[in-house]
């Protein structure tokens, strides 16, 4: 019932907590973007990456969808280990993007939890440090899920995935020995 057979039983509650935090933030971030999808594209463009406009649109439109699906998968505990891995990869990419904007001296709102975009008002500060710190926290959650993905409260368990013998519906080979 725990991640590793050696891991303490209460680890699974940390796993559930990590799923709710990481998944909740992703769903929230995705919803904020999808409700203002045009701004999401503008936010991606504001990073001023040397990529074609078509790719900017693809990222701007596609990212919120991916975030919401991934977030819901994490909250529900569907393919937790893989969802956690995907979330970790995304967070690393986000940090790289924010750091690059920071290094290039761009004045933008990262568009992480809000639709984002260029900040031109001098009274509005960029918050790259905080943004990166938050993403590091989320990466810790994601890594935990990769290492300890199992918990009773999860769709994975309900589906009998994740190799938990006492949950699988009766081993059929038993009597043939």
């Amino acid at each position, binding site marked *: 019932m725990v991640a590793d057979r050696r891991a303490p039983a209460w680890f699974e509650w940390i796993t559930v907590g990590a799923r709710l935090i990481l998944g909740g933030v992703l769903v929230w971030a995705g919803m904020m973007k999808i409700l203002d999808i045009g*701004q999401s594209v503008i936010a991606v463009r504001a990073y001023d990456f040397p990529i074609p406009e078509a790719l900017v649109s693809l990222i701007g439109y596609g990212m919120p969808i991916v975030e919401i699906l991934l977030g819901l*998968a994490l909250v529900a505990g569907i393919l937790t280990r893989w969802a956690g891995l995907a979330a970790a990869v995304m967070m690393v990419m986000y940090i790289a993007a924010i750091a690059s904007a920071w290094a290039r*001296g761009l004045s933008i709102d990262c568009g992480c939890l809000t639709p984002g975009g260029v900040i031109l008002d001098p009274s509005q500060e960029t918050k790259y440090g905080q943004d990166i710190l938050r993403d590091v926290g989320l990466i810790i959650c994601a890594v935990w899920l990769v290492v300890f993905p199992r918990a009773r409260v999860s769709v994975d368990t309900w589906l009998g995935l994740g190799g938990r013998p006492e949950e699988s*519906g009766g081993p*059929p080979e038993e009597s043939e020995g």
Partner: protein
Amino acid sequence: MADNKKKAQPTKAQQARAQQQQAQSKRGQLRAQQAAIAARAKRNRIIGVVVAVVVLAAILVGLVVWQTSSNDKPAGNTSSAASFTGFKPPNGSANATYIEVKAANASADAIIVDEYFDYQCPYCRLVDSYYGSLFRELVDRGDVVLHMHPRSFLDRGIPGNYSIKAATAAACADTVGKFIEYHETVFANQPAKEGDGYTEQQLRVDFPAEAGITGDNLTSFQQCYDTQKTTAYMEALEANQVMPASSGITDRTKWGTPDFYAYDQAKHFTTNDLLNGHKGTDGKASYSPKMTTADELLTFLKGL
């Protein structure tokens, strides 16, 4: 059951074994059946989850498509050469591509400068904050004629239609002879965050007041704005936007807003020609103008 058979074992060992085997195989069958049911239930649950995820994904994609298309405006008149047949602001070009800002004393060899912008575009405001007054001075001196292109393409990405509303209002200001004053007011009051837009109070009361539209002119302006009298023209203007043929620029990704074109010299110039960018130690970008006087700007334009 097994005990019974064991009693009979000494005499009917083989039969007992057969029976036992039969019982075992029956039990096995039962177990196999149960396992099959469990496997089927598991498979159904997996299919259920997969279907749920796919349906959800489809709903999200649908939401994005719907959001995008609801921001799209009707294409309007797309033929760039056709003359516009609806209401035209007095200084609007006949084919609805620009609004002209020209002093009465403009010299015959005044330089025509096309300025492309969107009232919601932050960098347009940035450039205008440095160069608006310089261009205005050159216009007043009769050295430059501005062809202003208040575009509204950002409405396709930003909800609220603030670009076309501001463009409509600016064109209404043109009907009372205050286009450039209103134009400057809009940029001076652009919201700090792209997308926050302009309020009705700003567009129909505060901005005209700041632009010096008063009395009968104000009534006339507000009537124009409230009835969206100039909206069709500004929509046509957006639909008609192309770089002048002389520029040779047909690739739409090679220009946008803010963008400039010196018509007679057939020279395209951009913010890169007008601004220096700096990277601050605090991680914020800042910009400074390359030219600070009208004369410097005129020299630059003549040298293009």
